[in-house]
């Protein structure tokens, strides 16, 4: 449960030390490009590039697999849907269901593309701490401030939310154990009974969260936090040669894929 949310894998690699903005832009560009050209060759180029990046990231493959697992059913669904419902000359027939050559082709293509997409996305989340990722998003969203989108505040909210997820999980577990000792059963009965059984968990959790939010807001004000101000950063983002190189490589991969 914990790993699904905190997906960052701390390590030292050429990818970990890149500027989060560069990683975000490179991956976003590849993700978009992935959907602009329907060819197996292009997909192979992106897949190969992703595999090289995987090796460079020094993150155990099991962690990528963990990211892939939740979307496997979606991939399977896509595969089956395409396999049976794309019209064309039938290769194999299973009763009323026909598999056409075009269907098989599309099914494998779309599934593979989803897999590559998830891997590419995991490359960013696994090698970038959530805090520096929100920093990057805040920086990249800066133009939106002109149309009065509070990007700094949104980034801060994301940071605070991420910061408190582990705390909330620990508290949830503690409250569950305490209520269980008072005879609460969270995993028995039908859906209605289960929903009712959550009340002794949810009420304390909400009270606790609101109280903490209140205290945090006061503490931040006491330390002179005011919304609507662009603050300087404790760890300013620095784009160096390596980051430009990363962007250049991403661009090269995209160009290569669209030419082949």
């Amino acid at each position, binding site marked *: 449960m914990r*790993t699904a949310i905190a997906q960052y894998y701390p390590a030292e690699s050429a990818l970990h030390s890149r500027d989060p903005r560069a990683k975000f832009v490179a991956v976003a560009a590849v993700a978009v490009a992935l959907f602009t050209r329907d060819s197996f060759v292009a997909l192979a180029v992106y897949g190969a590039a992703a595999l090289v990046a995987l090796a460079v990231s020094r993150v155990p493959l099991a962690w990528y697999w963990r990211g892939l697992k939740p979307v496997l059913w979606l991939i399977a669904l896509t595969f089956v849907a395409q396999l049976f419902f794309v019209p064309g000359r039938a290769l194999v027939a299973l009763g009323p269901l026909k598999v056409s050559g075009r269907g098989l082709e599309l099914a494998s293509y779309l599934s593979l593309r989803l897999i590559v997409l998830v891997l590419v996305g995991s490359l960013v989340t696994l090698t970038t701490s959530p805090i520096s990722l929100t920093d990057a998003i805040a920086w990249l969203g800066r133009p939106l401030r002109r149309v009065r989108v509070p990007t700094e505040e949104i980034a801060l909210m994301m940071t605070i939310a991420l910061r408190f997820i582990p705390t909330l999980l620990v508290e949830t577990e503690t409250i569950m*154990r*305490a209520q269980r*000792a*008072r*005879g609460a059963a969270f995993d028995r009965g039908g859906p209605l009974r289960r929903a009712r059984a959550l009340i002794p968990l949810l*009420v304390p959790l909400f*009270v606790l969260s609101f109280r903490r939010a209140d205290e945090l807001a006061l503490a931040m004000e006491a330390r002179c936090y005011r919304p609507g101000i662009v603050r300087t950063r404790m760890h300013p983002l620095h784009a160096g040669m390596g980051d430009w190189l990363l962007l250049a490589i991403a661009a090269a991969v995209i160009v290569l894929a669209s030419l082949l």
Partner: protein
Amino acid sequence: MKGASERAGAASGVAIACQGVSFAYLEGDRGVKALNEVTFSLSAGATVALLGPTGSGKSTLLQAMRGLLEPNEGEVRLDGLSRGEPGFAERQREVGIVFQTPEMQLFAMSAFEDVSFGPRQLGWPTDDVRAAAEEAMEQVGLPVAVFGARHPYSLSGGEQRRLALAGVLAMRPRVLLLDEPFVSLDPVARRELAAVLRALVAGGIGLIVATHDVDHAWALCEERLVLDGGRLVASGPWRFGDGGEADLVQHRLAVPFPVRLWERLGRPLTGAPRSAEQAAEALVAPAARKGSG
């Protein structure tokens, strides 16, 4: 069907024994050891202080004793019974546990509702639930007639703490495990809670109090277990004057104030008073007698 009064008479403690209990919390991919081969046995009805500095494993041990955390190694025996043996589940239910800041777990719309949650979950008949909740609220000094309809969050901090205790007492435990029961209470609330606990002990209930406040522990308990870094470093009755102080001082704990006072006064530590009030009485009473005589 057992009558409510019959259950009330059963408050005579449960003998709890830990045999080589180890427990590790999972943090990411690795385990962080919180308990390391903890072994001890307590007799039924014992009053025990579970002492140790912050992070020594006190809360983990309490929750393992109640079966809320499953030890990685070793076992917890209740009245000599192992988990799975007939009668064990019943014993486990008779071990009441009050978590740290238990008022955080109040959730019902009225004090009475909250206290009756436990017995209702046990499936007791409505009359028994009512009787148990009323009695529990009486025991903690929050009579139903006055507090029953109040919203839990409208009570004061000390009252909320005692209400949460009533929620556990309503299940008629024979032994109470308390995790830092006095933390963040004002002096009056602490005194009131201590009085409630002393009355429960007088009624025959077993008490295990996890705390790093040795003054409270000394006032309430006859024995102490000292944990440090997940290891049990001392057990048995309190020992002072024979080097037993080291069991506390070496593990970031203090010697109780009345004991230190008696030591400074050069009095025999075996008869050291249990509280500052008792100490004052012992010191003032003879002087007063001398003065009048």
